[in-house]
């Protein structure tokens, strides 16, 4: 029930609109009953040739009810939908908020297409929760009770029939359908998610699918997911139509009973014939409100599934408890002692017993074979992950006490893979900092040898229209623009030719002269300038020292250097 209680909480925020919806729903429903009752009464009355004024009064009532119903209906719809769609919008934002702290690990658990399906499809489907599950029963009960009280003035037995009818259509039939609902599993939400997943991956992996000639297979698979989604929708549609029809039939039967009973009572003289038409009209109208109850269980079930899919996310999040904010305007030093790190769900330690000192203002290079844990170590320094053991100090403060966002805001980061957003070069650069002028951005582009780029140049999703090296340079430009005093660079120039790389590094070292800089490098050339070189292998630090020290030592680094020579020169 947890999923639904979340929803109810959200509904409560739109209290005012909810109450208004109920109020106007009630008004409209009552006006409708009044309208048909008075028209039934009017005609019977007219048959007895009453004085004209009596008729005029009745007709005036008729008009009044008519207007009240139309306006009430309008207001009910307006308020209920406004509340609903505001709620949906809130849910979307709340969902994103829950998701956000997950980065960068979100894709180890979820798939993009799935999340998209949730925030769009599942949220949309929740509109039925409010519009069909939440308030209509309230309106229904109030209308029915008023009607039954009114009816009992004329005939107790007919009032009892109506009451029976209410329990039948409002409770019993929906209950039967909810039992049925449980036995047939409804998979609309899930199958929608699957289709969305498949399509998203199809689009993202399109080039590789094409290259490997797998498009046809995947297309086939998309057709299948689409068919099964449509099949589920169709099945759901059929079920709803069936439930709806059954409830319509039941309510028509009740009106039939009302008519039969009324006729019997009139024939026996227990009821004035004048009211017969009115009572039947009332019964026909009042049950119009009850028929949608039949589809309530189906919508409820659907809403439950949707909200479970939405609210289950983020349950296992660990909150960041860091309160300390970095002041800025200083350079940063790190000290790691006995740091162990293991990715969740991984049996092996990715980092083991890392002891390391990175003095403020120093330049550190991180080298080592692929998979040795270089990127992971950087992520620990950025508080993207937290160590399982040992301690990281940042400027003497334990990392655990520092607010993660504060760490990020003080560092210029280039990741091994950088994301670029659909838009323009300008928009992608503006991420770096507020209030950047065009000149600053153009300067930064020139610094990374992208002087030929214009700021309005379009950038495709994931930077697909840029070459490998251009992407890295754009990422570097972003970091340069941010201009903080901690540089964390993960192979920032791996796809860049040596000439361009050299020019970029020159400018980088210029700007970062007094800053702390940590650089993962796949190439071992040009490391002579670094204050220290850390050599990693299999998650541990195997060597550290300056270039000369390490070369002199003729250890691991020296060996790597020798191999490199055979490959690069």
């Amino acid at each position, binding site marked *: 029930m947890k999923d639904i209680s979340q929803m109810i909480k959200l509904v409560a925020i739109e209290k005012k609109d909810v109450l208004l919806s109920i109020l106007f729903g009630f008004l409209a429903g009552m006006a409708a009953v009044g309208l048909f009752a008075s028209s039934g009464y009017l*005609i019977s009355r*007219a048959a007895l*040739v009453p004085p*004209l004024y009596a*008729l005029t009064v009745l007709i005036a009532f008729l008009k009044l009810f008519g*207007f009240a119903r*139309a306006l009430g209906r*309008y207001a009910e*719809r307006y308020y209920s939908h406004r509340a609903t*769609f505001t709620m949906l*919008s809130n849910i979307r934002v709340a969902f994103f*908020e829950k*998701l956000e702290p997950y980065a960068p690990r979100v894709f*180890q658990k979820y798939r*993009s297409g799935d*999340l*998209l*399906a949730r925030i*769009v*499809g599942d949220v949309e489907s929740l509109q039925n929760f409010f519009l069909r599950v939440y308030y209509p029963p309230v309106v229904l009960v109030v209308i029915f009770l008023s009607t039954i009280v009114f009816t009992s003035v004329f005939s107790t037995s007919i009032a009892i029939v109506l009451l029976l009818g209410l329990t039948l259509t409002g409770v019993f039939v929906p209950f039967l359908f909810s039992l049925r609902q449980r036995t047939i599993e409804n998979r609309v939400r899930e199958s929608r998610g699957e*289709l*969305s997943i498949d399509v998203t991956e199809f*689009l993202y992996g399109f*080039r*590789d699918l094409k290259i490997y000639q797998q498009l046809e297979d995947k*297309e086939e698979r998309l057709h299948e997911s689409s068919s099964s989604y*449509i099949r589920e*929708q169709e099945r759901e549609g059929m079920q709803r*139509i069936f439930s*709806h*029809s059954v409830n*319509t*039939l039941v309510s028509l039967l009740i009106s039939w009973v009302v008519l039969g009973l009324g006729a019997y009572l*009139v*024939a*026996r003289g227990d009821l004035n014939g004048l009211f*017969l*038409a009115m009572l*039947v009209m009332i019964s026909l109208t009042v049950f119009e409100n009850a028929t949608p109850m039949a589809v309530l269980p189906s919508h409820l079930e659907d809403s439950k599934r949707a909200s479970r899919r939405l609210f289950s996310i983020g349950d296992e999040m660990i909150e960041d408890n860091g309160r300390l904010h970095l002041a800025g305007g200083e350079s940063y030093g790190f000290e790691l002692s006995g740091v162990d790190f293991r990715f969740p769900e991984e049996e092996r330690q990715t980092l083991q017993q890392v002891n390391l000192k990175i003095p403020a203002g120093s330049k550190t290079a991180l080298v080592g074979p*692929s998979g040795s844990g270089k*990127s992971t170590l950087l992520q620990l320094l950025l508080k993207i992950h937290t160590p399982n053991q040992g301690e990281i100090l940042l400027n003497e403060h334990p990392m655990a006490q520092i607010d993660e966002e504060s760490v*990020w*805001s003080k560092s210029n980061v280039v*990741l091994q*893979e950088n994301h670029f957003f*659909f838009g323009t070069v300008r928009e992608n650069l503006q*991420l770096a900092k507020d209030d950047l002028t065009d000149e600053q951005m153009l300067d930064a582009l020139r610094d990374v040898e992208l002087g030929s780029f214009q700021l309005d140049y379009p950038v495709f*999703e994931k930077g*697909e*229209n840029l*070459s*490998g090296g251009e992407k890295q340079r754009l990422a570097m430009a972003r970091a340069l623009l941010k201009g903080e005093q901690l540089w964390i660079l993960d*192979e920032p120039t*791996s796809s860049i*030719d*040596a*000439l361009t790389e050299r020019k970029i590094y020159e400018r980088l070292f210029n700007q970062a002269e007094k800053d702390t800089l940590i650089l993962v490098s796949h190439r071992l050339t040009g490391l002579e300038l670094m204050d220290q070189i850390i050599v990693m292998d299999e998650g541990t630090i195997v060597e550290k020292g300056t270039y000369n020290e390490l070369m002199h030592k003729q250890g691991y680094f020296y060996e790597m250097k020798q*191999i490199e020579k055979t*490959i*690069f020169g």
Partner: protein
Amino acid sequence: MKHLSKLAFGQRKVILALFIISLIIGGTIIGQAYFFVAIVDRIFLEQQSFQEIVPLLAGLLLVLAGRAGFTWLHGRTGVKMAARAKSHFRQAIIKKFSRNPIQASLKGQSGRKVSVLMDSVDEIDGYFSNYVPQMIQTAVIPLMILIVVFTQHIYSGLIMLITAPFIPFFMAIVGVMTKKKSEEQMEKLSAFSGKFLDTLQGLTTLKLFGRAQKQKDEIEKSSLGFRDATMGVLKVAFISSLMLEFISMLSIGLIALEIAIRLVVYESIPFFSAFFILVLAPEFYLTLKDFGSAFHTGRGSSGAANQLAEELSETESYVEWGEEKLSAGSNPPFLELENVHFSYGKEEGLFALENIQATIPAYSQTAIVGRSGSGKSTLLHVVAGLIQPSEGQVKVNGEVLSFYQEHEWFKEVSYISQHPYLFSGTIAENIAIGGRGDHTMNDIKAAAQRAGIAELIESLERGYETPVGEAGRGLSGGEKQRLAIARAFLKRPSVILFDEPTTGLDLKTERILQESMKELSKTSTVITVAHRLHTIKNADQILFLDQGNLAALGPHEVLMERHPEYKEMVRLQQGGTPA
């Protein structure tokens, strides 16, 4: 709405069935009113006994059951029709997406495309499950009621006849507005999807730049934008049903007044007829009103249909392919680049490859070298047949590439791109995607071995069954690369196109890779975008690219001698200092 209506009314049998069902429903509506009125009339005015009306009650029961039953049948037919239509549209869109050339596939936001395929197609539903069935009912039932009313009392019939057209007239006005608004709504939804998915992919980047909050605001804005667009559509719908309600109410009032006056003042109409008309009149207007809201839904659907049609009508320049088989002789193919030109957009002044001329013999190794952004990957795309030269041609075994079947060509090629995509699935599946489909698990293991990734895989708890990609285990940059390289080793192709990774390959695995490449090149023609001197030196010839032009062509030693620029580049690559 044209396309939709063609699709709907093309299904003659279904439409006919809907007509017949509507006729029956019309009959039950009239029957219900008749029995109902007759019973009241006899009991109330003629004061008959209960026994006398029992047959009428039985008749009424039958009619009520019929009404519910046939309404159910009608609804079912609509739902089925909608399912077929959605399937039709979605298949068309999927086909379009999968036929897209690479260039077109990169444009636009993926989230938007997903939204078109999911939401826009779903939006079509209403047209078929609601609008069409309701339209047919509206064509039949009011007419039947009108005829019955005319037989009872001409003036009421006339009032109905005069007032009824107001409803469609009003609807037409509203309809125009709805369509535009709902197109806007669909657009907002796609925009939201596009934004969300892109944001999701870049969430880490956003956080590191402290933009998560701002992005949240934008998501919120986009979400509210969608809400407002939705409310915009709904407001029109509500106003229009309010108006329809007023029209029908006034009309019913008019009818009631007229009847009452005749009944009371002139006594010129029997109670039965009067009551009968009064019961039928709301049913008459109800059908029209229902059509009003169905019409609204229909307009919404056609807004979505337009979006779909737009997506479908975009014509792309497809890469041409022919019908010939690529004769798989004992030798791998030889390639010729004749005067190859290609541009990403001449008018916009975008990057262009110009006049590339080269011959690549069978078994040879060719290295493409050049600075970042000089067009190396682009050239590899052209050779792979992923993009079509705008001028000149790529020839394979002396025939232009477009002479062969697409399938035949790609069967021979392995292309290891600069940024391979890891699919969500197991490691084994991710390697297998590169194969021809006839491999065994041992082949996969051997491929992983050659790519230097086997050791890592075997150290994992679930080995080759470890899930990677989205919702799977993360891999380091270099590990991802090697996984992709294993795909090529699985295939044993006769043409290898290799955008050499510079990223994170450690020097130990580098050796393994070199061995494997050497082995592969014994049976194939290899073109590599090369960064490693080792690869460059081993190549039979070098294509040296400079800003899309072929600046030099020849073996490494020759270029070193004759091309100072080339020499400088190589020197720097080795760690020399700039001259």
